[in-house]
């Protein structure tokens, strides 16, 4: 029986109460401050949620009101979200690195009345927008550091709200229990604003049923146990974080651990050694790149040892995935490698205890994927969407495979419609977009099927394979299908290519804009004595253009002839979310980029050798400036001798 079927456990605040009653001394949440991990037991957890909820009630916060948290992952910000839900309110977490105009849009659209800000930096942001947010009544700050200079009456500290809550609780002793009991599974728990690769963000309403039932299904597949540790380091505004740090943690009594600050995540991960890790491909790729850079700097003996065992592991992994048995020598080698290389590397990465690791959000390069698997890290793929409470399908331990996203999670039904679009039905399907009934009707069919907007198919084993966004799949002028993301992902598998944007819809051939990876290309250039000053300078070096050309040729070799990139250029700046070229979750906003770089696209297909590009740059503080420059366009000479992939 699902938890949502019982009126005692059908909302997240009720699960907090259940955990506090059944396991008061268990670790509910941990936070690293002042260099030490501090534990909130389930009883503390409940105490904070209760005091803050009562404090909110004394501020006049009530059913249907919206509370937004903004900041890095902090227990207080999680507690605040649950406190709002206690009172029948809705949590609307927002991205802490959003620029002002995006924030104003979301906060106004969601009708936020209380903002809980992590620190002075976020308070400054909220205060600067105050005049544009007519519904805002309070800004609560957690970290009092630097707040001595502020006297705006709209501000109050988290501690003072809890204090008011304790007083309110004394005056109204039954209030809390009654408010919690009023909650029902169908109530909206949170509104998650989707990053939106097109147009303005949309607010997906997720109910307590969505959160709880989805977490239950996931817990079932992955055998999550009470007390399992989990590092809460992904943005709080991303639905995946809420699904894990709140949904799964509360359902399974697992422990969410908040790192000290974003810069210490890698070290905190290692200290904690969590039981499970979820990270987008970008982070896995970064880990691998950092490790490669470190290896290159190591002494020759260490380097050779690492390279030897790495090659051995990958050879064995390939053999194993082909179903071949390993020889005794190979097995012996792996055992030695376990002691000398694999174990220490897992430990360095903070993955020594991880029973499973998931990557999701975008495809991961097969080389990266194989590297982690061969080192004994149980890396698997997950597929989800905000509208499906972050989870649709995932791979079981025995079914890990870089090309698929596994099977649908229990109780979720997935089908492919006649246009190739992935559709699903189940308890994870959201309630609809907040104040956007029409868009909701376009997204969910009358009989309850959610259209994901992704094109995909089931392979022979019944595993789901995702190709691209359905609306992005176009046609080249010769009529062959053109799936830009598919091509871009092949290009991005190169460690030297950070981002790629492919063009080709209604065009005679495929062309690609490339943003180089500053770290790897920089190291590569330094080794060859190529001096450079900045990203722009580096992107203009002829040697770099040749290097990227070779990398594209390698990717082309894995693509059908018509899908191969024929021309390319190197962007002189990185694609940035601040410039609206990418979403906050780092997906390319294709249409916007196509408009912004219209000149470039004309030059690609007009056969020119360079294009003038004027781009608007948004600085971190919101100021804008424009930059005009000439970017060279390169042709891919037919298949140069390709170095063997490492």
């Amino acid at each position, binding site marked *: 029986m699902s938890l949502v079927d019982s009126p005692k456990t059908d909302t997240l605040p009720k699960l907090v109460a259940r955990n506090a009653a059944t396991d008061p001394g268990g670790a509910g949440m941990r936070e690293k401050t*002042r*260099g030490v991990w501090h534990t909130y037991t389930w009883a503390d957890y409940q105490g904070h949620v209760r005091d803050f909820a009562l404090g909110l009630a004394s501020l006049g916060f009530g059913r249907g009101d919206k509370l937004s948290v903004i900041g890095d992952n902090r227990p207080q910000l999680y507690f605040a979200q649950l406190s709002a839900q206690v009172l029948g309110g809705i949590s609307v977490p927002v991205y802490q690195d959003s620029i002002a105009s995006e924030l104003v849009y979301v906060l106004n659209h969601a009708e936020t009345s209380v903002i809980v800000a992590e620190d002075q930096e976020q308070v400054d942001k909220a205060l600067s927008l105050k005049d544009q947010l007519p519904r805002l009544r309070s800004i609560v700050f957690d970290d009092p*550091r630097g707040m*001595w200079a502020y006297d705006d009456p709209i501000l109050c500290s988290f501690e003072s709200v809890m204090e008011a809550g304790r007083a309110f609780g004394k005056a109204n002793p039954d209030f809390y229990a009654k408010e919690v009991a009023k909650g029902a599974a169908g109530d909206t728990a949170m509104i998650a604003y989707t990053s939106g690769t097109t147009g303005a963000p949309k607010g997906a309403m997720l109910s307590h049923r969505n959160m709880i039932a989805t977490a239950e299904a996931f817990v079932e597949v992955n055998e999550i146990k009470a007390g399992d540790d989990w590092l809460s380091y992904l943005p709080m505004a991303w639905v995946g974080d809420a699904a894990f740090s709140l949904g799964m943690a509360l359902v399974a009594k697992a422990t969410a651990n908040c790192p000290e*600050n974003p*810069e*210490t995540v890698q070290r905190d991960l290692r200290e904690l050694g969590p039981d499970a890790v979820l990270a987008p491909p970008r982070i896995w790729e970064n880990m691998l790149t950092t490790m490669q850079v470190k290896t290159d700097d190591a002494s020759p003996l260490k380097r050779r040892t690492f390279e030897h065992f790495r090659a051995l592991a990958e050879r064995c992994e390939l053999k194993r995935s082909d179903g071949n048995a390993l020889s005794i020598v190979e097995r012996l080698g792996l055992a030695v490698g376990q002691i000398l290389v694999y174990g220490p590397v897992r430990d360095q990465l903070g993955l020594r205890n991880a029973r499973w690791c998931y990557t999701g959000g975008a495809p991961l390069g097969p080389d990266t994927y194989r590297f982690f698997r061969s080192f004994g890290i149980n890396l698997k793929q997950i597929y989800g969407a905000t509208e499906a409470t972050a989870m649709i399908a995932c791979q079981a331990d025995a079914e890990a495979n870089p090309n698929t996203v596994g099977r649908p999670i229990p109780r979720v039904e997935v089908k492919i419609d006649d246009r190739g679009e992935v559709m699903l039905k189940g308890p994870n399907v959201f309630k609809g977009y907040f104040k956007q009934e029409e868009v909701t009707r376009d997204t969910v069919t009358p009989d309850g099927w959610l259209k994901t907007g992704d094109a995909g198919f089931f392979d022979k084993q019944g595993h789901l394979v995702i190709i691209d966004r359905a609306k992005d799949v176009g046609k080249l002028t010769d009529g062959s299908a053109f799936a830009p993301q598919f091509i871009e992902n092949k290009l991005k598998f190169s460690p030297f290519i950070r981002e790629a944007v492919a063009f080709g819809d209604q065009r005679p051939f495929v062309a690609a804009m490339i943003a180089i990876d500053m770290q790897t290309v920089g190291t590569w250039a330094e080794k060859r004595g190529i001096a450079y000053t900045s990203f722009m300078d580096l992107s203009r070096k002829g040697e770099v253009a040749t290097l990227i050309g070779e990398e594209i040729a390698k990717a082309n070799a894995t693509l059908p002839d018509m899908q191969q990139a024929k021309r390319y250029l190197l962007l002189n700046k990185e694609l940035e979310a601040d410039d609206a070229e990418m979403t906050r979750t780092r997906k390319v906003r294709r249409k916007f980029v196509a408009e912004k770089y219209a000149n470039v696209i004309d030059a690609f297909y007009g056969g020119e050798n360079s294009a003038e590009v004027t781009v608007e740059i948004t600085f971190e503080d919101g100021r804008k400036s424009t930059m005009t420059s000439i970017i060279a366009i390169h042709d891919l000479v037919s298949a140069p001798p390709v170095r063997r992939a490492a």
Partner: protein
Amino acid sequence: MDDVSILGVATLSKKFGGVTAVQDVSLEVPRGGILSIIGPNGAGKTSLLNMISGFYKPDTGRVVLDGQNITQKKPSDIAALGIGRTFQNIALFSGLTVLDNLMLGRHVRMKAGVLSSVIYWGMAQKEDIAHREAIEEIIEFLKLQDLRKQPTAALAYGLRKRVELGRALANDPKVLLLDEPMGGMNQDEKEDMARYILDVNQERGVTVVLIEHDMGVVMDISDKVVVLDRGRCIATGTPDEVQRHRKVVEAYLGTSKSGGRV
């Protein structure tokens, strides 16, 4: 010397051979305030700080901290009495980590004897934990969490300056003497440092004496400004008063009559 000032300097003079570095300088540092000392190069600013912190012995005059004459005390005693300082040319142990440098800065506050420290038992252990907690507070305050275990030699210049401020704070000073904390910094780093200085002053209640060349910063954050020129104090007052002072304008700009920002 009264309750309004925490640190007083009276008719302080110092000569190096035939060169007069500081002559007859008197000033009062307001309790809980920020006092800036400005002046052209060679005006005697650093020499004045060196006399306050006990590195130089003045030829005449005296230094009074909270009613106590500290003129003839050793630098280590003065530090223990509550005067902390940073140096123009960063004084950190470059081979030690950020954490160790900060712990060293707290050394004068550590009381446990050699024996109990060696066996790390009882008082020594308790004390170590309490001191580490105080240091962690500073690490959090200055946002150095990710650098704890980094050797200071590997840090960027602006960060080393920040660690140096932390090192001075580790001693729980009542008065902090900062010698050009923003020298060689870019605008962003300067703004960060100015904010830290204000927070040190307001949140930790530390009185600050600042030597700084960036007039924008000085005028923005100081309660009181003292101007030195060739070893003499030529003006004292609020930032506004000092900016309008004729002698100050002359010292900085020659004989120009511009009344604007110096």
